[in-house]
């Protein structure tokens, strides 16, 4: 396994991947998260069209994660489970809702 792991809070870092309603309709997504000791905060797609994350809930008993945010085109709710937590390139995958759109997402920590 190559790469330098981040061994602190498992969500801290920059995550990239995509979401979409089908295997062929995908949207690139970057999520930057950090743990401040009380909450996980962050941004979806940092840059001119960034969306501040409203809340992140982590259930550490099963490492499920729910991310909530309000984008211009509707509320974002992403629910997934952390996989391969020991890896520098751990993954977060699950369901993604944005406005009226539904799909799945899969992001990997850079």
């Amino acid at each position, binding site marked *: 396994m190559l790469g*330098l792991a981040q*061994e602190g*809070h*498992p969500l801290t870092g920059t995550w990239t991947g995509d979401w979409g309603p089908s295997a062929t309709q995908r949207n690139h997504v970057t999520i930057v998260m950090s*743990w*401040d000791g009380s909450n996980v905060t962050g941004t979806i797609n940092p840059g001119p069209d960034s969306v501040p994350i409203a809340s992140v809930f982590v259930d550490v*008993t099963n490492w499920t994660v729910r991310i909530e945010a309000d984008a211009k085109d509707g509320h974002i709710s992403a629910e997934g489970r952390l996989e391969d937590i*020991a*890896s520098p390139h751990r993954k977060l995958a699950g369901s993604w809702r944005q406005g009226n759109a539904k799909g799945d997402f899969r992001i990997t920590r850079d």
Partner: protein
Amino acid sequence: MKNPHMTMSRSLCAVSAVMLALFVATAPVFSQPPFSATYDSSRQVKLQGPVTRIDWVNPHAFIFIDVRDATGTVTNWAVEVGNPLELERDGWKRSAIKIGDVAAVEGVPAREKRQAFAKSVTVGGKRLFAPPARRATVARQPTPKWPDGQVRLGPPPGKRGYWGPANAKGLVESTAANVPMTDDGLLINLSDADKVAPFKPWARALYELRQRNLLKGDPLSRCIPPGGPRQFLVPNGFQFVEQRDLGRILVLLGGGDRNWRIIFTDGRAQTPPAELVPTYYGSSVGKWQGETLVVDSVGYNEKFWLTNGGLPHTEALHLTERFSRPDLNTLKYEVTVDDPQTYTRPWTGGWTSQWVPDQDVQEYFCEENAESTFIR
């Protein structure tokens, strides 16, 4: 709640249980990667064959033997025989065994590779690499001091020596009762996790996950430096070089690819963490309080485990270390861990290290053992 590793062993026969108990008691101080992740101590293996290669490298010496099975197929096994520094201290040299010698090995097999940790190696009826029945005890000698009376952390004038590994297996809050664990920090009872440190929930869950995974993914197994207190837990030892005229103490580490760390003692103020580039060993300033060196460190990255066993931390980590030397042979180490993002309150643990006289820290590069073991 038993650790799954230990639970598995309990289901085996009584003989195996006894062997496991003996084995856990005599396993190496630290293995790389973690012993529990590498070896399955619930099983045993017997091997015999000619020696094809000898890797007498710190911290793990290996012999390689060709083993022929009942069908005549020959496979090459790597057999870990111990730490060469300890073996040499016990009187064993690399020349104790030669290529071509037919060795009989009893040991514990690795989980995934043709590798074993030897409990006994016999050649021509003679048992090799066994420790002496009783090791010599060192007489208590006074703490060496500088002419002005300050404690010396290094050797007495004109002498050599370094500090050996800690007498602890991991860092545990000093108020906790005995917390049994293997030499690489794997808890015998997972339910003891709450005694180890006052974890925040995410940190407790991550620590338990690492424990359940038998410490797989340990950064040290990828040759990542052992930052924080773990630098004093590795088996290779360490050395202080006190440069009093420069107002600093160098800590030369035998492990972690012979890393070094600077403790400034020139009276400078600690740099605010926000102004520091996060590193493995942080920014350290120290001052003597009586006969104790008190070191304040911040500026750590999150790329290492705080100690054996997988204690997590964040960049908010602030360590206060206290070093004292009550006699020539004893170094007391106490560390207060203050990381409000990981632990609910500051907590303190520590251990002692023993002086290794008349020797120097030996060369060690992590990648060398990687060549012996990982790439097989």
